[in-house]
């Protein structure tokens, strides 16, 4: 039987050591996995983690994939710091994509620089409103936000399908369940010519800086910190638990919604049923791997994006199953939690005996 005892002092270096050792252990794990699958493990690791970084295409794809992960994880980290467990970012992302995309379609074929900002605003507001549903239920009826936000994800995904199969279907699309392709005013500009890398990545970097400022310098960040430490102290400082719950869901839902509209007006360019591909869930790993710190989230977002691209490359070049990406991400979270437990608790083996 294991015995866990809380450590009095937690080493400061654990902020770096925990994610690094989790990444290290995960690499060892997949290394062994590749051997068992009969593949050359060094080559496989090279193809997944190094090769994408050696080409312009790889780098630009990294930018494309990391953008939604970083933006969603920033929002999630805000709530996680406050002790609000929003697991439904995937749904908020889907709603943002749908409402933002629908806005662009509504103004087809009007052109103008105003269109994208309007679509973004609509997506942020609708993502935040969708996020508010579990928030209000938690505040008013003390429901579990983990369950409600997660289940609303499936509602959101089905709602997207219903819209794309129905009202938003492309009138000239031979009955395919897809919307019309967005016209030029509804498409985000590209940063590097000839690639898919779009300005959404710059928005993500801007948000990293903003979130860092919000958390370290602004009152909002202070109250979030208080809320994560002690609900009683929060009340004493003049803020209520419900205010923090609402704020967390608004920020998280808003950012997830923004990530959604960036994705549809960026690489996808239209509304399709397959917009939700799990970024909202992967972003949870990003948030924790980044230690809920904006800069950490930026780096973790890049790493997790790399696993998507590398996984695809390994599928093409080595015939490895695409599931390898999911396996790596899952194992990473597992080792991360283990490393966390190991730094926070002293673990020892004991005989099963009743002791006070």
């Amino acid at each position, binding site marked *: 039987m294991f015995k866990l005892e809380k450590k009095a002092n937690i080493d400061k270096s654990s902020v770096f050591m925990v994610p690094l050792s989790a990444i290290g252990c995960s690499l060892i794990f997949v290394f062994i996995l590749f051997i068992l699958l009969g593949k050359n493990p060094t080559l496989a690791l090279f193809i997944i983690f190094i090769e994408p970084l050696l080409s312009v295409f790889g780098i630009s794809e990294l930018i494309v994939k990391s953008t939604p992960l970083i933006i969603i994880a920033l929002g999630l980290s805000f709530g996680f710091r406050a002790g609000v467990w929003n697991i439904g970012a995937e749904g908020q992302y889907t709603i943002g994509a749908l409402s933002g995309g629908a806005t662009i379609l509504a103004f087809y074929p009007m052109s103008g620089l105003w269109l994208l900002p309007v679509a973004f605003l609509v997506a942020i507001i609708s993502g935040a409103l969708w996020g508010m549903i579990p928030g209000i239920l938690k505040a008013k009826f003390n429901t579990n936000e983990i369950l409600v936000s997660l289940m609303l994800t499936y509602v959101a995904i089905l709602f997207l399908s219903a819209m794309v199969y129905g009202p938003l279907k492309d009138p000239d699309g031979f009955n395919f369940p897809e919307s019309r392709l967005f016209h030029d005013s509804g498409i985000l500009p590209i940063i590097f010519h000839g690639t898919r890398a779009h300005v959404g990545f710059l928005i993500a970097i801007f948000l990293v800086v903003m979130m860092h400022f919000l958390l370290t*310098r*602004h*009152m909002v960040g202070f*109250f979030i910190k208080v809320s994560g430490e*002690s609900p009683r*102290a929060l009340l*004493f400082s003049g803020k209520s638990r419900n205010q923090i719950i609402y704020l967390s869901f608004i920020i998280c839902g808003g950012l997830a919604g923004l990530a959604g509209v960036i994705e549809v007006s960026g690489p996808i360019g239209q509304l399709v049923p397959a917009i939700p591909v799990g970024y909202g869930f992967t972003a949870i790993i990003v948030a924790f791997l980044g230690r809920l710190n904006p800069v950490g989230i930026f780096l973790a977002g890049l790493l997790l994006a790399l696993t998507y691209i590398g996984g695809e490359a390994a599928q093409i070049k080595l015939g490895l199953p695409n599931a390898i990406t999911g396996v790596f991400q899952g194992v990473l979270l597992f080792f991360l939690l283990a490393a966390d437990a190991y730094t926070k608790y002293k673990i020892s083996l004991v005989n099963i005996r*009743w*002791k006070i």
Partner: protein
Amino acid sequence: MTYLLEIAGITKSFLDIKANNNISLKLKEGEIHALLGENGAGKSTLVKIIYGILKPDSGKMLLNGEEYNPENPDFARKQGIGMVFQHFSLFESLSVIDNLMLGQDEHVSRLTVMDQLSYIKDEYDLYLDLNKTVATLSAGEKQKVEIMRCLLQDPKIIILDEPTSVLNPEEVKKFFHFLKKLSSEGVVILYISHKLQEIKELCDFATILRNGNVVKYCDPKILSINELAKFMIGKDINQSYKLSEVEDIDVMNINNIKYNNPELYGISLQEINFNVQKGEIFGIAGIAGNGQSELMKVLSGEINNIKQGSILFHGKEINYLSINDRRKKGMVFIPEDRSGHGAIGNFSLIDNLLLTNLWDVDFFKNGVIDYIYSAKKTKEVIDEFNVICKDENSLASSLSGGNLQKFVVGREILKGPDIIVCEQPTWGVDIGSANMIHDFLLDKARMGATIIIISQDIDELRKICHRMAIISNGKLSKIYDASSITSENIAIEMAK
């Protein structure tokens, strides 16, 4: 005469505070022995030593005439000593029987335990559905589970820590009946309490503790409640402080406040009436859990939906004002708990200063916190109030209790408030810091501030208050002059 347990000269210190000073105690077979004292008198420390949780610094214990040095509670249980804590140690999600099984040695089978339990149930009238989940039980029933667990060990001595605090009067009656039956079979009961009426009714013998010393051995049936109270609370009033002048201006009026507590076992407030004047220090005494924290929240605005009665500050009703709106009007609050309420251990002192200041526009601009100004103010608190720490970036948890409390008190006083409402301002604080905190408060009162102190430390209140009242069961007594209140008055008001 032989004694089952003899304790001789037990002393135990925590840092510079002597929690137990040369305590001796003898328990004889079949006796219900009261351990009487106020909070902090040293009762818990003593029983933790007997039960093997703490080790004494000096002194010795004899069990059945043989030396007894319990290594841990397991050892104590094997020697026939059982204990029921005030706070239950049960697994909420497990059934009653599973909880009981967990207390047994590995080789004891479920059937044996069931057998024993059915005997205990019949013998002592302790009926309880063994398959119920503990979480669904009432506090009184949970206590039954603890008692059953204790009885399964076939103990010779049972230590009960404030057992009636979770029982209603009807349950108390039954419980006493049970204890008397148990003692008639030769089991010794060490009964910890500060409820004098109960002790008179139940106990054969009482040892009264005050400030870690035994002040009296007696038969509680012979002594009156007033006499017991006098021993428990002490008589020596240290009137060395010079009190401030009170001006005849009402600063705060509390008129017939009523608050229904929605929490289970929470205390509701009613008939709370008092007024405080400029320069006055007003004390509210009472035993823990009689509505003090509720009253504190009502005064501070952490509860701000009082519909019945009124709270007037400078003549204006503030029932519905939030805590920060009250702070804006010149009120400050010092809650009882320094860890996680009034301050946060994981936060720097600067962040702890901000905790009660983020309504004051000096500390932020457009929502952005001015950390330079905050650091300056934090340094002022540290310097003016003698807070011993490395610097303003130190974590609150790195400070000693006394220094952190000086910081918390200083943080509020520095705002120059009209009124200070504090709860247990010197709880768990060393004597040096406690005296300093009293000085800070008295100084402030001399400069015209009004102070309300809610405290369980009656000596403290008699020392620094002008007037005081006692809160009991959510009701406030009539108001006494602190200089003329007697131990009898206090005991009677507490028992109401």
